């Protein structure tokens, strides 16, 4: 197995995710691009786990640490999407649009509470 193939795929996917985060205006599409970036990192961790494992095995140690980290990242990503979508829906309820570049950063208090 040549580790260069999954490594390059992961690097390109990370670039695509970064491109999507900067290009998309819709908050949900933005979250999808963030998922792409997270998955690229997962692929790098799994590949590194496999690559280093075969070198560790020669020394008599067994480690699946990379894969454990991937599990942790998947759980954190699930939590992130839950909270993120709650915020997006609240934004939509307040402003009737989910576009991130029309959100005013300094919001007068009275306008937020009008419902």
């Amino acid at each position, binding site marked *: *197995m040549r*580790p*260069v*193939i*999954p*490594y*390059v*795929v992961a*690097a*390109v*996917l*990370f*670039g*695509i*995710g*970064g*491109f*999507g985060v*900067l*290009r*998309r*205006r*819709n908050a*949900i*599409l933005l979250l*999808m*691009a963030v*998922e*792409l970036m997270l*998955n690229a990192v*997962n*692929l790098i961790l799994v*590949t590194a*786990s*496999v690559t280093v494992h*075969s070198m560790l*095995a020669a020394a008599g140690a067994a480690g*699946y*640490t990379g*894969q*454990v980290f991937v*599990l942790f990242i*998947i*759980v*954190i990503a*699930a*939590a*992130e*999407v*839950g*909270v993120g*979508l*709650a*915020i*997006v*829906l609240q934004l*939509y309820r307040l402003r009737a649009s*989910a576009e991130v*570049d029309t959100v005013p950063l300094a919001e007068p208090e009275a306008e937020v509470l009008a*419902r």
Partner: protein
Amino acid sequence: MTVTDVLLLGLGAVAIGAGLLVVTTAHLVRAGLYLVVCLGSLAGMFLVLTAELVAWVQVLIYVGAVVVLLLFAVMLTRAPIGASADLDRPGWPGLLIGGGAGLGLAALFVDAYRWTAVELPDAGTAARVGGEVFGSWVLPFEVLSILLLAALIGAIVVSRPDVGAHH
């Protein structure tokens, strides 16, 4: 080129193609469905790389839960069914930074691993990875459960209109 390499190349090409479509398509719902294809082929790559438990967790949580949640949000924000023209900003900053990061990292990896070939280890089955989780990583695992609880409560508090409102 072994069978593993060919499988990785094919699945990687599918993942990259679907990923490109996720960030360029003008249909909100289609972006979610392309994300399923991309995450599914990544799960296939995990399987080929012998990370068995991770692959199934990826299918269960990402394809099963995260994408469904994203599609729910698409529906709840009353996204239009057809193509929408106003989804994108001007592309050149994203192209510059995304392309720079992607190609730069790819060049680094190619430089470091060009001729390396490794033997695939024993599969990361549930027993082996579980042994590792409950051997070396018990404390982070427990902290993670608290994080999930906090995210759950946070999502409920954020989405309830009557919490924190001034009447």
